[in-house]
């Protein structure tokens, strides 16, 4: 699975080789950066939030452990007029000295050493800049005091490795930002679909058209053989995302994820829908390059944010109105939902069965599956489970990477599915087809987690 994961890990390490072992904490570097931005503005240098975010991005690539590099990176991104350069210099010097003084650990240890030690502050378990900090995230710093300002930055920088495994709902704002960026950089590949087109290439079948033409100059003797090979296209992806109340803490994050999918590098066709009480198609709203613009537009277009959930009805609406139009070409269907369903679970099972039949692969991403104690026992989830090809967690970056791995391995053949015996219809009404009454009706044997 983990080419993408690997990449992320590496980029986290690339920040600083010591970072991983030394400090593994989500940090408030961004807060510092934003304050620095405020200071710059105060001193008359116009900097936008966009620029600050760009700088944040740049820190993934510029080794922050070298002050000079960081200085120039910041300068090149934040200063746009030559006149501002000296002001920037002053601000830079002033701000980083301020940061040092301000740190609580510096206060408590002021007599001891004058160097900042944000890492130690974390070790003492004090909450930093308005964020909750898990004990496990506090670094097991060896207590070595580094003399440079840099170690401090490393300390407050949130390494992606931590962010990757953190549940979305527990994330701090900075971590969410980091996760979003990481998401945008994930390499999404969808499984390939065999098309009926060919182009010339080595191997495969003879390209007769070219064959005759190319060999004319040899008087028709077939000296040079040309071949054609089949063209493969990525499969289209259809995403159905739950935005009901119970999904609230995840849905915005997951919409980011859907957006990242839409703008993947391979130009995959993504059709996106959201549902809580009813189904809304959001494909067009996600067309904007800018995530926030897309999400703002979405906020206006979707009427039932954080409403109740009727998954069965939403999937039925999809089956009846959209399935024929968007599932044509061996599409992979991805449902993102926690499975809390207040609707008719009988209908949900029926519509899931229908959906599975028309999808090449049906994947269900459930954020709750990340919880160690979770069992898919809610009525809705239990009803749907029998018809899912892959059941995956969707609670943190690592699980999305896992999904990326799965998607890229979607094969040409459909996954094997068991044939379902229809569950008895709830009504006591006898069926008018006597032949069917002879069938033995059994409940579905429950499927193990991580089916497929």
């Amino acid at each position, binding site marked *: 699975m983990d080419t993408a994961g690997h990449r992320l890990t590496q980029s986290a390490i690339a920040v600083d080789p010591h970072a991983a072992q030394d400090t593994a904490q989500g940090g408030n570097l961004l807060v510092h950066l934003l304050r620095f931005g405020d200071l710059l503005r105060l001193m008359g240098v116009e900097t936008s939030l966009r620029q600050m975010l760009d700088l944040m991005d740049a820190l993934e690539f510029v080794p922050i452990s070298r002050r000079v590099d960081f200085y120039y990176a910041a300068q090149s991104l934040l200063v746009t007029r030559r006149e501002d350069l000296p002001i920037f210099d002053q601000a830079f010097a002033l701000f980083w000295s301020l940061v040092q003084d301000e740190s609580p650990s510096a206060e408590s240890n002021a007599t001891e050493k004058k160097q900042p030690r944000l890492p130690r502050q974390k070790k003492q378990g004090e909450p930093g800049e308005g964020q909750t900090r898990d004990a496990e995230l506090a670094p097991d710093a060896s207590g070595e005091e580094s003399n440079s300002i840099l170690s401090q930055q490393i300390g407050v920088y949130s390494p992606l490795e931590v962010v990757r495994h953190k549940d979305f709902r527990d994330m701090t704002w900075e971590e969410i930002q980091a996760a979003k960026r990481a998401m945008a950089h994930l390499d999404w590949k969808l499984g390939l679909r065999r*098309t009926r*087109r060919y182009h010339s290439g080595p191997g495969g079948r003879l390209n007769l058209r070219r064959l005759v033409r190319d060999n004319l100059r040899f008087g028709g003797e077939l000296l040079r053989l040309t071949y054609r090979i089949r063209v493969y296209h990525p499969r289209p992806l259809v995403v159905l995302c739950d935005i009901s109340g119970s999904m609230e803490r995840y849905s915005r994050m997951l919409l980011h994820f859907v957006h990242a999918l839409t703008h993947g590098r391979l130009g995959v066709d993504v059709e996106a829908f959201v549902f809580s009480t009813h189904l809304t198609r959001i494909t067009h709203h996600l067309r904007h390059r800018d995530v926030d613009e897309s999400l703002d537009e979405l906020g206006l277009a979707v009427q039932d944010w954080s409403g109740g959930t009727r998954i069965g009805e939403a999937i039925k609406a999809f089956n009846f109105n959209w399935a*024929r*139009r968007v599932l*044509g*070409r061996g599409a992979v269907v991805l449902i993102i939902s926690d499975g809390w369903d207040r609707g008719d679970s009988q209908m949900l099972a*029926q519509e899931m069965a229908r959906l599975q039949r028309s999808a090449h692969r049906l994947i269900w991403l459930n954020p709750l599956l990340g919880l160690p104690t979770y069992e898919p026992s809610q009525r809705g989830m239990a009803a749907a489970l029998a018809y899912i090809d892959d059941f995956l967690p969707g609670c943190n970056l690592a699980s999305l990477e896992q999904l990326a791995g799965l998607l890229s391995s979607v094969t040409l053949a459909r996954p094997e599915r068991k044939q379902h015996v229809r569950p008895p219809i709830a009504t006591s*009404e006898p069926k*008018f087809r006597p032949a069917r009454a002879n069938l033995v009706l059994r409940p579905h044997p429950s499927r193990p987690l991580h089916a497929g």
Partner: protein
Amino acid sequence: MGEFKSIDEVQAALYEHVYVADRALATAVFLTLKLGKPLLLEGEAGVGKTQVGKTLAEMLQRPLIRLQCYEGLDVNSTIYEWNYTRQMLHIRAMEAQGCQDTAELEHDLFGAGFLIKRPLLQAIELTETGVPPVLLIDELDRADQEFEAFLLEVLSDFQITIPEIGTLRAARPPLVIITSNRTREIHDALKRRCIYHWIQYPPLEKELRIVTLRVPNAPVLLARQLVQFVQGLRTLELFKAPGVAETIDWAEALVTLDMQELDLPGVQDTLGVLLKYQDDIDALRRDDLKQLVLQARGKLEMEARL
């Protein structure tokens, strides 16, 4: 093309050729004939999209060239292809005769005798030599976007270039009818070049006319009841409601079974002609069917009493 002076005439002519068109469709067809633009027909399966093309060919007494679309359709299967086997045989034959002239060989090999004409080329050739045909491009949504782009080019100026032969241009554009089931959206660029019409499920009276026209030996009472039944069926929530084609099939089935009037057992036995999804058949409970049959029959009794 100037045969028809009004929409009414078109409508009447279509009716004469066993096609019941409503005013909107007749207008679209009339405009297609007048403006020489392609007609794009969309609608649920089985509402008679393809039949428009066939009927028009019959009505205008023009040859019908039908191109059934599928994924991967390309130049080789829609315009022309060289007959490779013959070409190779020809090369061997020339060799045996000791022909050394490559230029002559090439000229021979890529002559009209080795050309296999596919539907689009046929259509364009026909406009040059005889009557412009009706070109029916059926189920365009099944073809891929590559083909659509390429069709766009052909439809924009009705000319085809074969490098070895030259450019062929249609003297008069053929009458083009494109149908789509909307399993995928047709590209805007193509839509913009067409006259568009969405064919709906027909209302009761129209469907009855269609059935009596297409299944003339159906008893009047039965025809009315079965159409009423189908109309009722379409108001239910079904994954695939029956189209007009199904109604006609069903009428024929019931006539074959010698039914004079609709009854519940008869409906149950032949439901498979109307509904093609097991889910839909399952979803219809006996009560619903009974209700529908009663409705189909009862309404008539009410009308008779008035």
